[in-house]
């Protein structure tokens, strides 16, 4: 039978004063039954707007002005709000990116799934109840009658996304739109959700419109791919053609920026001295007080790692594994409960703040969110000279050093006098790197330093990290949840799970033959093994 969804020359207008006239311009694509179509593009490419337009959920100020959208042959452009409501949830359904906030916190999971049945059907209470239990089973959530009574905050991220899917597919819609459903999930959970969507598509013949920016995911599940840039479709076709033989230069650039999962070959480090090492580092959070049972959370359990000069050590793990806590303990932003942290042999784990100053000079940190790492009310110069001036350098000297470092990170010297809001995310992260280099540290900590950047920008920043490690023979501690990034930049990697180190060793060996079962599961779950290029060396 014909396509489920046909979008023909769709144009959506942005309100006056936005950065471009049209959110989406002259976009056409279609979804056949049982087919997964991936719409891929960087942030601001208009991929989400198109999906929201199909569902008719655009905010008031954003209006579709041309083109047609046909769902199972029925024209939706200009359809009445009443008609749209009848279709939403019954013939077309949608799942969203943030499972944490996409479910109503004050209603049980059962109620939220049952709701769509209540709105669209005349089923009796008992029939609805049975249908809910059946749907929960289909998305393989463990013991359904406990889940039905549970509230969203009592479920894990993955379980919540499954509940979302159950709600969407309760009425067996022809079209399922998934707006970056796995971006916020850990790698292992992401793999299960992708698998679930693929199975449901196969079993029910639902057409899936999958929105994502992660080419790994595209390689994993897509039948056909639509690549979008600044509101226009630059290329579309079968997954294999687009991924392996991209015709449009933008697609080539995008794919070229995806780091490969097979580790790059690194220059061997012949006996460089150990700069930073931790011995049985431990961090425990305890809460509770009068009348309340004491709850203890062991964020970091007995971690011992060491980093040699000029070496990049990566800590890899899912959220909650304790990798950031280790980084913050090393930077002494939080006080470790036990264990030693030594730089050039001098332990500073327990030093009081006063005598910590000169240790701080020797290690610096780059944070994840570029938009919050620079004080909005101070110029780039003022932010950069803060550290060296604290450590006794004269302002004039600090300023000239700042200028040199900006050249190093390929930014114009006059940016010194500008304010942070005048720079893009990628540029700001470069400024943060330059700032970190100002006091000539021996150790640089990068805490998820590239996860907030678009793929294309990510590649350049990773190259920059490698260059400065080489140039200043820094010891680089790199924290990331993205295996591809770890593969490309780390000499050795440390895998952490629930606060403990399960495995560590040279990147090549660990990627080639992981010994610990958790590491194996982690690597197996990483989507799109075939895709990706070597970034460094």
């Amino acid at each position, binding site marked *: 039978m014909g396509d489920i969804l046909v979008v023909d020359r769709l144009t959506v207008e942005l309100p006056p004063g936005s950065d471009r006239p049209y959110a989406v311009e002259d976009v056409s694509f279609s979804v056949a039954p049982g087919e997964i179509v991936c719409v891929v593009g960087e942030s601001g490419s208009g991929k989400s707007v198109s999906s929201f337009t199909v569902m008719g959920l655009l905010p008031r100020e954003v209006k579709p002005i041309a083109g047609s959208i046909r769902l199972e042959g029925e024209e939706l452009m200009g359809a009445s709000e009443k008609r749209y409501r009848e279709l939403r949830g019954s013939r077309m359904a949608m799942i969203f990116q943030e499972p944490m906030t996409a479910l109503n916190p004050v209603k049980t999971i059962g109620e939220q799934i049952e709701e769509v049945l209540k709105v669209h059907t005349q089923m009796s209470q008992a029939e609805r109840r049975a249908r809910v239990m059946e749907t929960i089973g289909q998305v393989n959530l463990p013991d359904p009658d406990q889940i039905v009574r549970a509230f969203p905050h009592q479920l894990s991220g993955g379980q919540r996304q499954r509940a979302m899917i159950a709600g969407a597919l309760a009425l067996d819609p022809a079209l399922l739109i998934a707006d970056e459903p796995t971006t916020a999930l850990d790698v292992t959970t992401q793999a299960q959700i992708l698998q679930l969507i693929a199975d449901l598509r196969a079993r029910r013949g639902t057409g899936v419109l999958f929105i994502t920016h992660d080419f790994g995911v595209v390689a994993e599940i897509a039948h056909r791919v639509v690549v979008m840039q600044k509101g226009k479709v630059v290329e579309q076709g079968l997954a294999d053609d687009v991924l392996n033989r991209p015709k449009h230069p933008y697609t080539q650039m995008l794919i070229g920026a995806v780091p490969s999962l097979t580790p790059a070959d690194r220059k061997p480090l012949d006996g460089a001295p150990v700069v930073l090492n931790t011995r049985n580092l431990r961090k425990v959070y305890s809460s509770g007080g009068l009348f309340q049972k004491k709850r203890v959370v062991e964020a970091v359990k007995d971690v011992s790692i060491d980093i040699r000069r000029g070496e990049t050590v990566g800590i890899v793990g899912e959220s909650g594994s304790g990798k950031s806590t280790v980084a913050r303990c090393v*930077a*002494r*932003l939080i006080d470790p409960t036990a264990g030693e942290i030594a730089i050039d042999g001098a332990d500073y784990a327990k030093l009081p703040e006063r005598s910590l*100053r000169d240790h*701080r*000079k020797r*290690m*610096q*940190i780059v*944070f*994840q*969110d570029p938009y*919050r*790492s*620079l*004080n*909005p*009310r*101070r*110029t780039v*110069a*003022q*932010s950069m000279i*803060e*550290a060296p001036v*604290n*450590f006794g350098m004269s*302002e*004039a000297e600090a*300023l000239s050093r700042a200028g040199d470092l900006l050249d190093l990170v390929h930014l114009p010297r006059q940016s010194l*006098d500008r304010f942070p809001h005048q720079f893009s995310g990628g540029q700001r992260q470069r400024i*943060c790197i330059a*700032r970190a280099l100002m*006091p000539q540290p021996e150790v640089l900590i990068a805490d998820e330093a590239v996860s907030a950047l678009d793929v294309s920008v990510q590649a350049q920043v990773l190259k920059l990290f490698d260059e400065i490690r080489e140039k200043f023979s820094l010891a680089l501690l790199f924290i990331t949840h993205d295996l591809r990034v770890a593969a490309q930049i780390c000499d050795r990697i440390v895998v952490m799970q629930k606060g403990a180190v399960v495995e560590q060793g040279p990147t090549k060996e660990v990627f080639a033959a992981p010994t610990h079962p958790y590491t194996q599961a982690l690597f197996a779950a990483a989507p799109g093994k075939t895709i990706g290029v070597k970034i460094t060396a």
Partner: protein
Amino acid sequence: MSERAQTQTFRALAKLRVPAAAKEPAIIIPAVILGIMVLIAILAPWLGTIDPTLLDPTQRNKLPGFVGQIVLPDGSKAPFTFHLGTDALGRDIYSRVLYGTRVSLIIGALVAIFATVFGLAIGMVAGYVRWSDGLIMRFMDGLMAIPPILLAIALVSLSRAGVTAVVFAIAIPEIPRVVRLVRAIVLSIREEPYVEAAVTAGTPTPVLLFRHVLPNCMAPLIVQATFVAASAILVESILSFLGVGIPPEVPSWGNIMAAGRQYFRIFPHNMLYPGICIAVTVLCVNVLGDALRDRLDPKLRKRV
């Protein structure tokens, strides 16, 4: 400030073209009206007014527009039209309302400044110095539990009546609210990466507070200050109404209304004109506060 930093600031100031915010009507209109009020307060002596305390029992409770005569300092008499009528002692309402502008605006401003400065200091300490937090906040809860008007009444009437007593009495109950706001902001800012970066840069805590935390408290504080100023002018009129406000010889909108309260059915002008002034001024300050809040710090809406 090094020479170079100075040039930077001058250049930054030069670039300060009228911010887009100022073009919004919700800011222009109230700002203009308040500007007029301030001008009236400053220029009161030259706006056809006479000594607000000059009384003439023979011309008591005259309706607006009454043409009478006044005794000049050298004792001679001169004709004078009382545009807004006279009060129960024959004093010119027009002059008293204009001079009253001074007192009411000063009270609004002083209370706002006093409450904000103290609130900021205590809030910063509570937000940044962990061990002091519990103690300070318990004290603030205690102060906040006492209904503000009662606290003000007790403070004013038990101390020597006067503008300073009234300012303290209105400001003290406002401090806990400012402290809670500042503490909440400081707690969230200290988690910001740029503050943590400053910690790793070895910046000592006091410098860190002034260089990074304070500037980012400014926007919400200014908004809170406008609301404090608005409520201060209102509370002053309520204190005068209850007979514990500013003594009558210092004209303020509040005590002119309180004096006229008895005659609101036969000589309504006593209450009408100061009442209008209070309503207009407080309205403008509130509208300005709302507009500033939406412009400066949309997420603040939750906290107020």
